[in-house]
């Protein structure tokens, strides 16, 4: 009997989605006075931190801009569990069940890539937040992103190392299981070798896996090679640990990184060790790039009482870019939004001025920043060639 009871419970659970689906289907069609933005982010699992930071930005944007074309905007937030299979399910649910007008997301290119074919088939535009893998938008007319891709950042940092630091020999530490890091390292290496004209100018490429905490062995190897600079793009918490351990090993070469580092936790975890780390990003909370940056930073400080992370600004931009596209299109029809998005030019976002190129990738200025006395400090701005 116990078994039959269990079976009954399971059948009940099973019947929820089927019944729920039907009612939702009915609602979505009728609710034309609401515009729905689907948001899929990793809220649980290994990337929960990234998802949480982006949700902050999106929710803040919704508070500031709750309406477009006189219609209310409703966010449909779904969890992709830091899991590719779940990400595809979540995206399918958004386009098929919730009938969203557009999608925002996600932290992690892997999840965006899983959603790619789904949004393309459904004809619903998606705006990526911090997914930087070139494969996300490649061959997909419906995927856009407000972040620039790895190639530009890699080139910017190689130039910085060569011209500003006068480095001729560098070592690289890459997070081998992170597509973001692997991509950046490739573009950095190509550019740096081109600049120096020396195929051996990259002395050593050390790898680590996401979640590793001990880098002393890799760093000791690097120490004996005595490079002029160390390029180490990767997740901010691992990078902070890496730099902290490098300082403990008395490595004097400066560390170079990329946009993920602009997160308060980078300084919390790294402490005084990360002073002097230089990275490229697209956003500065001290020197606002656009009027929108100021709006965003002030609202963020007021709501959360801390400094925003760069990905929070990107998520915010994804939302307001969609609003802008809907206004330009004069319609919330997904196809119209897509056309308007593709034509985005000189859009003032919180994280810089966005122009989308033919792939749907953002072309924008890069800001180079450093850490000084435990604060992110602006160094210079570099515009794309």
């Amino acid at each position, binding site marked *: 009997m116990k078994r039959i009871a269990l079976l009954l419970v399971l059948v009940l659970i099973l019947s929820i989605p089927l019944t729920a689906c039907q009612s939702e289907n009915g609602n979505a069609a009728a609710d034309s006075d609401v515009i729905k933005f689907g948001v899929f982010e990793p809220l649980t699992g290994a990337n929960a931190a990234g998802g949480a930071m982006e949700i902050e930005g999106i929710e803040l944007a919704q508070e500031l801009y709750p309406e477009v074309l006189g219609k209310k905007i409703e966010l449909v937030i779904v969890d992709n569990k830091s899991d590719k299979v779940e990400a595809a399910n979540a995206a*399918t649910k958004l386009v098929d069940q919730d009938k969203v007008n557009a999608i925002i997301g996600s932290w992690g290119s892997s999840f965006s890539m899983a959603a790619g074919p789904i949004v393309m088939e459904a004809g619903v535009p998606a705006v990526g937040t911090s997914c930087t893998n070139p494969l996300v938008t490649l*061959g997909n007319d419906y995927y856009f992103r407000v972040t620039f891709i790895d190639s530009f950042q890699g080139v910017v940092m190689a130039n910085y190392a060569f011209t500003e630091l006068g480095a001729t020999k560098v070592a690289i530490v890459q997070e*081998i299981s992170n597509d973001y890091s692997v991509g950046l390292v490739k573009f950095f290496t190509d550019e740096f070798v081109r600049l120096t004209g020396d195929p051996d100018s990259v002395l050593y490429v050390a790898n680590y896996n996401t979640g590793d905490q001990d880098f002393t062995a890799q760093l000791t190897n690097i120490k004996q090679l005595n490079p002029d600079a160390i390029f180490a793009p990767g997740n901010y918490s691992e990078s902070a640990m890496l730099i902290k351990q490098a300082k403990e090993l008395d490595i004097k070469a400066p560390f170079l990184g990329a946009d993920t580092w602009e997160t308060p936790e980078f300084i919390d975890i790294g402490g005084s060790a990360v002073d002097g780390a230089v990275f490229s990003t697209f956003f500065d909370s001290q020197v606002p790039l656009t009027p929108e940056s100021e709006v965003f930073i002030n609202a963020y400080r007021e709501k959360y009482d801390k400094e925003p992370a760069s990905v929070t600004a990107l998520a915010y931009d994804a939302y307001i870019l969609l609003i802008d596209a809907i206004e330009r299109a004069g319609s919330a029809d997904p196809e119209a939004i897509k056309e308007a998005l593709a034509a985005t030019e000189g859009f003032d976002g919180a994280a810089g001025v966005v122009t989308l190129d033919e792939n749907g990738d953002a072309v924008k200025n890069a800001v180079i920043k450093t850490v000084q006395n435990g604060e992110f400090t602006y160094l210079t701005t570099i515009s794309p060639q």
Partner: protein
Amino acid sequence: MKKENKIRIGLIILVISILTILNFTLGNYQLRILNLAGIYVVLGLSLNLINGFAGLFSLGHAGFMAIGAYTSALLTMSAAQKQSNFFVKPIVPWLANVELPFLPAMLIGGIVAAILGALIAAPILRLRDDYLAIATLGFSEIIRVIFTNTMSLTNGALGLKGLTRYTNVQYSWGIAIITIIFMFSLRRSSYGKAFMAIREDEVAAESMGIALFKHKLLAFTIGSFFAGIGGALLAHLMGTIDPLMFRFLMTFNVLLIVVLGGIGSITGTVISAVVVTFSMEALRFLDGTINLGFMVIESVPGMRMVLFSILLMLVVLFYQNGLMGRDEITIESMRRFYRKNIKKGAKS
């Protein structure tokens, strides 16, 4: 033809026609979940063969799935797709221009997974229980780390994108049905009986003249084959794969299905694969703000996973045998159930 067989064939035809109808009536979302359920049936049954029939506690399923997924993906991708994917390091030349249709690619994926399964199993099968579990877990992690590092073969962490999404209801459930039939006939065969004898008592089985190593190896190899097939189906449902998909969590999901269904039960695994896949989606509402009418519970992201882990713990602690234990729902058992409960009820 025996009456039983007639009913069986009738049942299969019925299931196929139901699936065909669903294929045309369901929306994309439900279809995707249905496909996923079919794939989880294949994966669950293959793990059930290793864990339930032969009693070998393996935690390496994700690794074999990864092999099947990558092999089939690299075989079905067009040369142009490969070139655009491998932008960091070019693909190894011998793979660059291979392009096969889905079915042979999937079978090769399964076969490669089976061969690797056999190679891995041969040395570690003499380990017992938790040691075997950890060794297989280790192998699946090793496979994942290798796939992350061999950029010119797998594209590393960047993953593969743009696979044609061949997996549809015909494929996922067609193969699921074939797997179900295969598992039933395997269990009725002398091999299946030998597996279960080993599960119950190795020493006794050996003294009865059952070759332990041969049978364990066979169970493991067949299980890996179906894991590879499941991986291939999953890859071509998703259209994109990367090494992080095949973490321990993937094995855990499949294990969850087998445990909930009842370790050793075929029908139990099938039912639980479908129920788990659907309820993972059904419980999504927990992550959002819940309006109960009289009170509103603010949204707490992650509640769904917490509830799911609690459900699992409750089943493990209080329904240790899962849904079906080692029993099956068969035509015979339904008849018995009917005679015992319903007829009696009608009389009184």
